[in-house]
């Protein structure tokens, strides 16, 4: 049983136990366009909620990906280096960026539910 929470900056965190799997939403990938490069943090790096966790680049633009929650990076999706387009094809699945060992599960409460996020995207698009 997993829960997914969203930020206003269009990152998601899917919580499995004490680990959060972080990526960008389908809306985000559609806005970015074809992803050609991803810069991921080192495993073991401590990230702060709202701090820069990764960089994603489309043909035209570079964008920061912020950590939706604080914690330690325990795994990164190395497959993205060779196949960055996975982020466009399957953002919620194979296109995940990093796994974070949650420092404070309470941080999740401030993030949006699926329903809230869907309404948010509708309001800005």
């Amino acid at each position, binding site marked *: 049983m997993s829960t997914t929470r969203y930020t206003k*900056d*269009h*990152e998601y965190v899917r919580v499995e136990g004490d680990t959060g799997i972080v990526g*960008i939403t389908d809306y*985000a990938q559609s*806005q*970015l*366009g*074809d992803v*050609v*490069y991803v*810069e991921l943090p080192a495993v073991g790096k401590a990230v702060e909620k709202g701090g820069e966790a990764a*960089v*994603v*680049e*489309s*043909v*035209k*633009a*570079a*964008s*920061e*990906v*912020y950590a939706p929650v604080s914690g330690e990076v325990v795994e990164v999706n190395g497959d993205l*280096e060779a196949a960055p387009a996975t982020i466009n094809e399957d953002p919620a699945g194979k296109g995940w960026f990093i796994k974070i060992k949650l420092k404070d599960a309470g941080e999740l409460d401030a993030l949006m539910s699926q329903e809230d996020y869907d309404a948010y995207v509708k309001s*800005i698009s």
Partner: protein
Amino acid sequence: MAKPAMASHVHLTLWTNEDFMADIGESLLQTPLHAQHVAAGARMVPFGGYDMPVQYPTGILNEHLWTRENAGIFDVSHMGQAWLVGPDHETTARALEKLVPADMLGLKHGQQRYTQLLTDEGGIIDDLMVTRPVDPAMDGKLFLIVNAGTKEGDYLHMAARLPADVRLERTDDHALMALQGPKACEVLARLAPEATEMTFMTGRFMEIAGIPAHVSRSGYTGEDGYEISVPDERAAELWDRLTADEAVKPIGLGARDSLRLEAGYCLYGHDIDTRTSPIEAALNWSIQKRRREEGGFPGFDRIKGELTNGTARKRVGIQPEGRAPAREGSVIATPDGREIGVVTSGGFGPSVQTPVAMGYVATEFAAVGTDIHLIVRGKALPAKVAALPFSPHRYKR
């Protein structure tokens, strides 16, 4: 992934700050093809004062590759079209030669040339295409195409410097579309068979499916292709006819930028501006022999000196060795950390499948193959000075 951050990066890549200020202060203009873009599902962005398609639903990568393999059609109606009109070719050509360094007098009937409007200091006010009509009865006229964001300034600049017997006539009631790619010729020939007879950098009037058009065989992608000027009221009709061809897809400004970068072309306001001379920008080829010897254009003293003694910096191609693109503004350094220049255009090249860039470096580092570093997000990434273009030009000579 803050949306404002994404937007600001798009600004950096697509617009000059001046464009952006103009865009937020004034309402956006629309080209005669605006409804076509909206109907095709384009994402519209402000560019050069106009509401323009940056991409269609298939995305920049697919649009780019489609153009290199088939034919893409681009709405470039935001660009400025005008005629210089004088009593005879020599008078009009000499009037323009006072403003640009290319040989205008020597233009043959139907010949097109690339040149630059220069400041008195030899800086580039704009770059433009000039075509002499085929028909000797039109001698004394030259057709100009200038950039969107600079056209008002260009026209004021030119009008203030023309002799009494040469005038500038804006053609604001004409749209402009570019049909580009290896299949452009066969596509256009289906509607206008004489299109096949044209060679690269020539222009002529013709009817395309009954629509009167001024057509040149040129473009901004490195591929064979045409730029087609038609009256506003016939533009949508021609666009619809051309896009009905299964070899043709509409292409937005995003792929236009990646195509021209691979082709090694300058984007005004980014790779060239009033602070760069044509020689620094490696546009020496666009200044013909007679002009180099005789001068008679703004900034001649500087440009003559630069042609003789070289320049302190030079525009070069840059091939990053890794997968990370280096964007406009990235500092260029030597491998031991000395700052030697800056990236002026940079991104990902969909055809070459690597990041590509261009920028200015101190001339001692301008040789192809020189090892350099690009500073991206605080990290020094290895790169090499590279020959331009990245993607070979495939013109119909």
